[in-house]
């Protein structure tokens, strides 16, 4: 895809680990926020234990770590509005979208209407989305 002289590539960040037990979730979020400055086509995936990263009501007061979960709600302001959640991963964990944060963005082409960033996709649908990417980063 060409946008003037700039090449826009499709970048996907694949999140597959629960937060806090390892540093992957936080590192992924940091990299995503940095990458947002480069005006690329960015998608985030939360699959396997990665779905736990978006759980509502996280409170890290008693484990002495920073609760970075509120930062996900800022992704829309960074123009990151394609967030894919794998349906089977939720089901295996007895979870539904209701257990996760709502993530929104404001659509500049539609009078800044607030829209959902989260797309619930099946494993087969996710495979297609992955297949369309230029670059996939795994966390």
């Amino acid at each position, binding site marked *: 895809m060409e946008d003037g002289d700039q090449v826009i590539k499709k970048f996907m960040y694949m999140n597959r*680990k*629960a*937060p*806090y*037990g*390892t540093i992957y979730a936080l590192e992924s979020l940091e990299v995503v926020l940095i990458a947002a400055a480069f005006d690329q086509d960015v998608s985030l995936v939360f699959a*396997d*234990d990665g779905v*736990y990263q978006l*759980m*509502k*009501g*996280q*409170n*890290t*007061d*008693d*484990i002495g*770590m920073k*609760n970075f*979960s509120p930062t996900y709600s800022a992704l829309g302001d960074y123009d990151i509005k394609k967030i894919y959640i794998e349906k089977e991963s939720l089901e*295996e*964990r*007895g979870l539904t979208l209701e*257990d996760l944060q709502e993530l929104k963005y404001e659509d500049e082409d539609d009078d800044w209407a607030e829209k959902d960033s989260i797309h619930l996709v099946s494993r087969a649908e996710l495979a297609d989305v992955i297949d369309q990417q230029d670059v996939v980063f795994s966390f």
Partner: protein
Amino acid sequence: MAMLHTVNKSPFERNALESCISLAKAGSSILLTEDGVVGAMQGTAHSKKIEDAMANISFYVLGPDLKARGLSESNVVNGVKVVDYSGFVDLAADHDSVQSWL
């Protein structure tokens, strides 16, 4: 000899919980910590492993790690006891030895 086993990895990511359960002797205890706490939740693809083992093994889960991950204490598998850090210390003191599964 009663042993305390600790498991700090998610059963969806590694088989530490499964190995631990299959090697733990009757009368021993298993404490789930860190990412391991997701193994204590009811209604998951792994809940049955704990439910089936509970007749012979006592299960505990570390409350602060549940809370950090937005997981409710009321949704843990029935019979799993939620403990805090001092409860963890008590468990370590009350058992003859501790085995950490990685």
